[in-house]
């Protein structure tokens, strides 16, 4: 079965420092991987996706993610964190087969301190 794991419940970063939010995956076949962000009292917003192609994927708000097949990871990164980046981040993988169902990780709360 497809799954993703987010090993960190919370990540704390000082504003201006680089940030990394970790995600590892377990899939059969080629992985379709996604990152979403959830701000307080809001729905989920799409950040970026990996389906095929370059391992470094660039997304919204200056975020990027690196697909690493050997480490089965898809970590979310940003070179310089902003206080406004503080939110809940979810890694997700598309389920098997001809479907668009998503399987979500447990989420990582990012707190950026001024």
């Amino acid at each position, binding site marked *: 079965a497809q799954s993703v794991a987010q090993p960190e419940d919370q990540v704390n970063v000082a504003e201006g420092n680089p940030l990394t939010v970790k995600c590892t995956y377990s899939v059969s076949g080629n992985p*379709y991987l*996604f990152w*979403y962000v959830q701000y307080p*009292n*809001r*729905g*989920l*917003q*799409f950040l970026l*996706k990996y*389906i095929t192609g370059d391992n470094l994927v660039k997304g919204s708000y200056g975020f990027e993610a690196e697909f690493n097949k050997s480490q089965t990871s898809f970590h979310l990164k940003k070179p310089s964190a902003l206080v406004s980046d503080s939110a809940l981040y*979810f890694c997700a993988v598309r389920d098997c087969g*001809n*479907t*668009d*169902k*998503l*399987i*979500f*990780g*447990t*989420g990582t709360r990012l707190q950026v301190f001024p």
Partner: protein
Amino acid sequence: SAVISQKPSRDICQRGTSLTIQCQVDSQVTMMFWYRQQPGQSLTLIATANQGSEATYESGFVIDKFPISRPNLTFSTLTVSNMSPEDSSIYLCSVSQLNTEAFFGQGTRLTVV
């Protein structure tokens, strides 16, 4: 991208009652899904809303508790029936076209008292 309107945005309901949540999309979409996000937890798929046929439910979710309608390619409803406090969650509508990213409504925050 798709613009998704979900309503109500929040509600407080008495136990034993039912609430119907609506999801309206500004364009025709192939796939529509309903997710639940319990307090402090991740998202769990309830069901896939199929246009013109019965929804496909995930393990642990049943039609009697969560009846779903999808009369056309732009609209769906989810009903939470015979509610109990354990049903207090955020319910999210999601849409996608095949092999593209999914888009989410702003969610319905349900509190059952």
